[in-house]
């Protein structure tokens, strides 16, 4: 029975993406389309954390680091190369390499849980501090000034490979982002069905047993972490394109917090969940902005607390359970043993 829902879900997602690409642009105005584009881009970022956390059990507090690296790498590379194709490749590669180094450092040291959170948080703060202080002409990579706290403005948009003058317009940008989201989603689903993916999930369930079976858990966690970093980097590249601007706040605590909130609200342990959570929270934030009355932080804070206390599994798993009229499946995201205080 569950395979039916699985296949139905996969097909439904594809149809929705297709509809979004072909039909939606006729129905909404350009401004809404641009807003939706950034929701889609952020969903890709949400997927990156949803994958490593919900399935790998790796709660990274600094996923924004890879997001920011992707954005900055794209900006610097496209300004230097003139053509965006190489820049996109670098924007995925650099965060992936960074994740590989950081992951090696952490997983071979058997760091996990809280301590992994500390290290990843610290790393994104280091990046923030470093990039934030690069104001002034002295700080440039090739022909791209880093701009420090001012950021990098006027980032060239994606162009058709090989033809730098043929730049994507906002509609094409939207369609590209939706297609990318769909590809990432299906790609992650495929990965999770492979042996690699099954081992990663098993590690989250019982790392000791995985090792006793003969799998090197460190390598699998590293692999998952690198995939997460690459996807976040890709999202960063698209983000830099969307706004044609990037600034050091992209490495900040607030950005990392947002990603975690999206995944929690949507549902840890699913792939659809982070997308849903992201869309919901983004929409909420921008509605509040337009509304003017309530402070965005206040509402986000209330939402997060409410969800942790009342809907800890997130919207999608709880929704599925209600539909099937049974309890939501338990995904143990808290891998520490349930000990009493001290």
């Amino acid at each position, binding site marked *: 029975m569950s395979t039916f829902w699985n296949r139905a879900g996969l097909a439904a997602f594809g149809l929705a993406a297709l509809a979004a690409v072909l039909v939606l642009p006729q129905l909404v105005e350009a401004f809404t389309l641009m807003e939706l584009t950034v929701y889609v881009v952020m969903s890709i970022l949400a997927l990156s954390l949803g994958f490593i956390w919900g399935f790998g059990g790796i709660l990274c507090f600094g996923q924004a680091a890879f997001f920011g690296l992707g954005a900055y790498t794209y900006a610097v590379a496209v300004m230097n190369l003139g053509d965006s194709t190489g820049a996109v490749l670098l924007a995925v590669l650099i965060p992936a390499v960074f994740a590989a180094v950081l992951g090696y450092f952490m997983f071979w040291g058997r760091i996990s849980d809280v301590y992994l959170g500390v290290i990843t948080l610290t790393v994104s703060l280091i990046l923030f501090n470093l990039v934030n202080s690069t104001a002034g002409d002295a700080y440039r990579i090739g022909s791209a000034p880093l701009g420090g706290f001012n950021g990098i403005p006027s980032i060239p948009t994606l162009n058709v490979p090989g033809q730098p003058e043929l730049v994507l317009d906002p509609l094409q940008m939207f369609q590209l982002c939706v297609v990318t989201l769909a590809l990432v989603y299906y790609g992650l689903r495929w990965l999770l069905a492979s042996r690699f993916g*099954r081992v990663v999930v098993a590690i989250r*369930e*019982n790392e000791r047993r995985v090792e*006793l079976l*003969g*799998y090197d858990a460190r390598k699998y966690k590293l692999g998952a972490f690198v995939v997460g970093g690459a996807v976040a980097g890709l999202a960063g590249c698209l983000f830099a394109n969307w706004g044609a601007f990037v600034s050091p706040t992209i490495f900040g605590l607030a950005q990392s917090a947002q990603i975690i909130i999206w995944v929690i609200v949507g549902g840890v342990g699913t792939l659809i969940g982070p997308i849903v959570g992201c869309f919901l929270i983004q929409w909420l934030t921008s509605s509040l902005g337009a509304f003017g009355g309530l402070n965005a932080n206040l509402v986000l804070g209330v939402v997060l607390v409410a969800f942790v206390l009342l809907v800890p599994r997130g919207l999608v798993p709880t929704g599925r359970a209600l539909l099937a009229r049974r309890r939501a499946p338990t995904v143990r995201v808290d891998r520490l043993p349930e000990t009493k205080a001290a």
Partner: protein
Amino acid sequence: MSAKENFHLVQTRGLGIDFGGVKAVQGVDFTLADGELRCVIGPNGAGKSTFFKLLTGQYRPTHGDVAIRGRSIVGMQTHEIARLGVGIKTQVPSVFNGLSVRENVWLSARRDRPPRLANEACDDVLERLELTGVRDRLVGELSHGQRQWVELGLVIATDPALVLLDEPAAGMSDEEVERTAELIRRINQRSALIVVEHDMPFIKMIAKTVTVFNRGQVLMEDTVDRVLADERVRDVYLGKQLHAELARQAA
């Protein structure tokens, strides 16, 4: 080639581990031949489970050496030792509760085999263990006995040369105990086994040679009947006073 054949499957020399003053295992010389079935008995705290953890690499010995087919495994990672052909069923079931029975066994079957052969091996193991009926159930939802069997499936699906079973009959009904004994005999056709147990009737069902542990050391090693008749073994299990009391009552 012949040099390799001269090595025992497992050989420990003066094996010991010190936990900050507590010598959980000390000076253990233990050998096991390919395809041999050995039972290990001893009172609680005798160091049996610790001994197992020294064989799987979960603990690193502070003294002595452990060799598998002549190759020292001291300092090797757990997963490397597992790949040498060592499988362990732990005292407390260690399985993947959130995954289905089939997925549990599949992860093991798929380790060294390509996808199609892995699926066949997986289905084969499930059949042998009579788990085919529950193959799609989540392991966390099964009974204790069934979870033990899933763990057995996990262990044998890689076809290991050495299978370590830590109290496989614990918490089982008489009927399940008999089935377990039968399964162990069948596993023995392909793998060597070391079985830690307390259940004496169960041991009599499966054992030929028995090693007795006490206080981290090997007390004696002999055939089942001689071990169970030995006074020292009874003292170690029941305590000298109780033994004396029983003797007095018999008189």
